[in-house]
């Protein structure tokens, strides 16, 4: 059973990576904006949930909902007040701004919470598991993460392809100027997109924060995994991003099985291999 449980572990880990990547994929797809602060924003969400649960004693589910709303509003404000000013034909200014934002958030978290590593407490949920077969069981928390990732992708697909807002997203991504002619206010469309991106990263933060310890410095590494998942899956495709997360998770799990030191490296090598063999990713969007 040792091969099989590695596969399961990899797929479950992939769910977490897919959740990291989803918000990144969303705003890249709509705005062509690469958000270098994405990993730190996920961490910020994790710390906010930590504060609300430990200091205020609010149950995890309720605080998640609360922080989803808070992060959506933060994303909306971030776009309207900061990113909107630097978005344009030149891709460098928004990159620099999000890079700066990443440093600000890291140091802000360090100041507020210190450098100790923390973990979200989910009670019995953390350690409960479902037995699939004798000697093979799945942790409830990682399974929930994978299901959350699938539900999140399905929901976003639904928004994208079945709603007026989704049509506005896709039209704006195609051609922002012509979208304005349709009465679409691109500024508000972009702000909603960033809001949704940060709302999704709260889910990523919860699943990750229950699973592993975190401290203010680990944001950039999460960003790297998120990037790899997006690129492996193919830019602009949400299901592709889910697949990319799972491929990355699998590669890391298999690498770790060979030798624990190989976990991260195996992920990076797989990423490079995909870049070499299929530069546009496994499931690139049809749009050129």
């Amino acid at each position: 059973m040792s091969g099989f449980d590695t596969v399961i572990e990899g797929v479950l880990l992939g769910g977490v990576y897919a959740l990291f990547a989803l918000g990144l994929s969303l705003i890249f797809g709509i705005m062509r904006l690469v958000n270098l602060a994405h990993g730190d924003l996920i961490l910020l969400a994790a710390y906010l949930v930590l504060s609300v649960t430990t200091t205020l004693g609010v149950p995890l589910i309720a605080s998640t909902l609360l922080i989803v709303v808070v992060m959506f509003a933060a994303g909306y404000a971030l776009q309207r007040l900061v990113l909107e000013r630097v978005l344009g034909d030149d891709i460098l200014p928004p990159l620099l701004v999000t890079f700066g934002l990443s440093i600000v958030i890291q140091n802000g978290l360090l100041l507020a919470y210190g450098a100790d590593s923390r973990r979200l407490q989910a009670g019995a949920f953390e350690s409960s598991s479902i037995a699939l077969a004798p000697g093979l069981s799945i942790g409830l928390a990682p399974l929930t993460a994978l299901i959350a990732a699938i539900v999140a992708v399905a929901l976003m697909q639904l928004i994208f392809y079945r709603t007026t807002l989704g049509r506005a997203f896709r039209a704006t991504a195609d051609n922002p100027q012509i979208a304005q002619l349709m009465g679409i206010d691109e500024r508000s469309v972009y702000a909603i997109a960033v809001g949704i991106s940060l709302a999704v990263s709260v889910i990523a933060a919860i699943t990750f924060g229950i699973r592993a310890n975190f401290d203010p410095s680990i944001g950039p590494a999460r960003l790297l995994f998120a990037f790899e998942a997006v690129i492996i899956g193919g830019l602009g495709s949400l299901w592709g991003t889910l697949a990319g997360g799972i491929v990355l998770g699998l590669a890391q799990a298999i690498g770790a099985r060979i030798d624990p030191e190989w976990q991260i490296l195996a992920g990076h090598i797989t990423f490079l291999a995909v870049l070499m063999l299929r530069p546009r990713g496994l499931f690139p969007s049809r749009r050129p």
Partner: protein
Amino acid sequence: MTTLLSVSALDAFYGDFQALFGIDFKLEQGEAVAVIGANGAGKSTLLKSLAGLVRNRRDAIRLAGQEIGDSTAAKVVRLGLALVPEGRQLFPSLTVEENLLIGAYGGDRTSPWDLPSVYRTFPVLQERRHSSVTVLSGGQQQMVAIGRALMSNPSILLCDEISLGLAPIVVEDIYRMLLHIRDNGTGIIVVEQDIARALRSTDRFYCLQEGRVTLAGTPADADQQAIRSAYFGM
């Protein structure tokens, strides 16, 4: 007849470059007007100014008495001016039907144009409603672009070079539909390089040259020589 749209002393700029000089222009209710002129005469700039893609002095453009010269494109379409842009500019990620639906995004008005009435006007689009717009013929794409603009139920439809790149027989079809649209009460402004084509289907025309109106009148009493000299400046 009441004046639906009036433009007075419109100067339009791209940065430091001035593209239009003191344009005066009028459209009455239910009228089809042609704007003709050579390349670079400022025709498209005029349409872009009307649609809000090029911003101007607030009082330079009035729509039904309201000053809209400095309004954004997103606001102008809500007030009843819809542009069919040059080169069609459909959204490739959206299907035919989604392209039409997105046209109604900003509109609160739902009559007379909605999906069924657009499909009645362009039956071929109903057959291809779930296709990607990228696989349509040029004429069908132009129909989607016109239908998309109609979905906002504009009081005035602005058409930028809608015959460009289309077979003559398709162009005739498109113009026939435009007249049908006008007869339903929508004002129409067409920008064309094909002078004869434009003049056959419009009530009045303006000729632009180097950003200025050099001639205006009705096709019936326009004299070829006068148009030629207004067009080329010779």
